């Protein structure tokens, strides 16, 4: 259990000699290049920058973002597997930048389990304790305790190859928890499991979290995992933090267009709309449909002194209502999901998804059927056309 602080952390991968030469041939007036959206400077490729985060004791933090956004690099810097180019990493009040991984009192669960194939489950779990010269009976007690928690006692004598993916991941978690680390790091631990097992293991991790009561840092690209596991979520893109907040906050108040599009399934619908300020009131207008924004939204826009302007309007599929009037569109596909139907619509030159609960379905939609839909002023998100930022922030 410990607080973790990441202060202005930066990670730059220096050029290897060949790249360096190529870089030196770059003309002075040539614009700065980007590699897979990562910034390239004279020092090298910048994978993470301006990363500031205070993780509270026993908090469960999830780093989420698309591939290459720097989330795993950040976790690896905390683990000590990557050097920190700049900034400070503080664990439990001590600066850890130059401390060896084994002395950071952290444990890590890897995506591919990282179990020693020639060792039994017991030996795998006991390995780190053995290296720390913990007495044998204590090792035995701790391993059996962890195995009990994870329900893998019956597999202690087996080798990893004789276990299923889910069981292997439990062993990997068990290996981490026997050490009772101050910080538990998990790098996409469920990515290799099938959908059903992933759901089960997610629930297991939630239960485990309450049992072992330590600080967690969890990396995933799966927003469902992020939303269900995290006390707070850190959304990253191209090496930068986009937003930090509780799952509710990032879902209800996305700070920018990227977060709005990344969090939520199906993804948020976006329209080219218009924000109109009439005194202290704000209206959004799209496809001839005009609605006044909710009071709290208006207050935030007023505080930011936002004026009338063209905006990107975002509305979540579950917040969109089918009606007789409103924005007109045509049905492309109707997907029956059981409890709801996902209507894929072409409207205002965009592909729009509307989730309609099955019990509210008044008719069955077919390809090309005309449809109208509306949304409330409390669920509309307005993003600047220029900066992509949410105008409420």
């Amino acid at each position, binding site marked *: 259990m410990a607080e973790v602080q990441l202060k202005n952390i930066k990670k730059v991968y220096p050029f*290897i*000699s060949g790249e360096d030469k190529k870089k030196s041939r770059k003309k002075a007036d040539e614009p700065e290049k980007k590699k897979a959206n990562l910034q390239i400077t004279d020092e090298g490729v910048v994978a993470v920058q301006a990363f500031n985060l205070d993780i509270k004791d026993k908090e469960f933090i999830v780093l989420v973002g698309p591939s290459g956004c720097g989330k795993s690099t950040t976790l690896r810097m905390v*683990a*000590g*597997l990557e050097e920190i180019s700049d900034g400070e990493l503080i664990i439990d009040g001590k600066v850890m930048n130059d401390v060896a*991984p*084994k002395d950071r009192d*952290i*444990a*890590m669960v*890897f*995506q*591919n389990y*990282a*179990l*020693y*194939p*020639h*060792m039994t489950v017991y030996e795998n779990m006991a*390995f*780190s304790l053995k*290296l*720390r010269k913990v007495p044998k009976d204590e090792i035995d007690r701790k391993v059996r305790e962890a195995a009990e928690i994870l329900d893998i006692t019956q597999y202690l004598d087996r080798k990893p190859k004789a276990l299923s993916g889910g069981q292997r991941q439990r062993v990997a978690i068990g*290996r981490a928890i026997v050490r009772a680390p101050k910080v538990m790091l998990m790098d996409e631990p469920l990515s290799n499991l099938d959908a059903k097992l992933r759901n089960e293991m997610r629930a297991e991790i939630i239960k485990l979290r309450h049992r072992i009561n330590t600080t967690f840092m969890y990396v995933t690209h799966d927003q469902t995992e992020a939303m269900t596991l995290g006390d707070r979520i850190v959304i990253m893109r191209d090496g930068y933090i986009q937003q930090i907040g509780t799952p509710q906050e990032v879902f209800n108040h996305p700070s920018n267009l990227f977060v709005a599009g990344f969090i939520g399934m199906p993804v948020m619908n976006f329209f080219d709309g218009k924000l109109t300020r009439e005194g202290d009131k704000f209206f959004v207008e799209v496809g001839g449909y005009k609605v006044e924004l909710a009071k709290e939204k208006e207050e935030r826009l007023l505080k930011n002194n936002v004026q009338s302007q063209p905006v990107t309007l975002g509305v979540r599929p579950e917040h969109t209502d089918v009606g007789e009037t409103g924005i007109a569109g045509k049905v492309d596909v109707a997907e029956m999901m059981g409890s709801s139907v996902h209507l894929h619509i072409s409207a205002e030159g965009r592909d729009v998804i509307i989730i309609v609960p099955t019990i509210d379905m008044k008719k069955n939609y077919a390809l090309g059927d005309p449809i109208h839909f509306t949304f409330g002023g409390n669920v509309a998100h307005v993003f600047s056309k220029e900066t992509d930022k949410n105008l409420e922030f």
Partner: protein
Amino acid sequence: MKKSLPPNASGGKSSALHNFGVYVRQHWQLYVIFMLPAFALTIIFRYIPMGGILMAFTEYNPIRGILGSEWVGFEHFQRFLSSPDFMTYLMNTLKLSIFGLLWGFPAPILLAFLLNRIMSKKTKQRIQLILYMPNFISVIVLCGIVRILLSPTGMLNSLLGTNTNFMTMPSAFRTIYIASGIWQGAGWASIIYTAALSNASKELTEAAVIDGANIFQQIKAVEWPAIKDTVLIQFIMSVGNIMSVGFEKAYALQTDMNLATSEIISTYVYKKGLLEGDYGFSTAVGLFNTVINVVLLISMNQIVKKMNEGKGI
């Protein structure tokens, strides 16, 4: 239309074997095309010459041929085994082989572990290139280099400030032979281990680092298990060749003064067979050598299988 199954279609060992059989039957022409040349070459160059073994049991006369020569049974073997030099040659061969194995076998493995620790790809490639190069020097050229380096006016003597002729010292022969062998072959032999090490999971090494393992513990827990099977197979093969000490190098490093340690079975076979024309006798000695190799190979394979959960050749 018939649907062919891949050779490794799942469903247990016997069904996989059955599927493979079906697959081979369906594509037999392909197998014939690929296998026939190799099969023919093996028969022509490996099996037909075995007929020459008969020479070991005859007083071979090149004019009469193998079948026309006088049949002497095990006489040549008896002559060799009862010869006063037999034990010297056998012990020289065994010592050269065993010491060569003890010193030479771990060298490429250690080299592979070291190469695996080099993070810079470019540096690693350069070092590998330097290490592989001696392999392409011919044995005779290598022996020439060794002779020059170790001559009384050579580099080693200059460094030591002495004028010892190492090539005339029977006690120095094995060291020279083995050390030059390691220098020449260790880099090249490390390729197979370097390749096997590339399969060692990077994540596993990182997990070991976080677990608190030092470099040696990392090698023991992660890298050694990744190459263990390869090492065992190489070891069995090396033991199987323990008596097959190449004659060229020993002959090229031989001097009249170091014969006490440098005369080995293969140089003896060469001298008897080709220089003295005693073909039957030298074939018998060569056959004796081969039989011991086969026995050693089979025994070592059995021992390793017992020690290594049934894994061997």
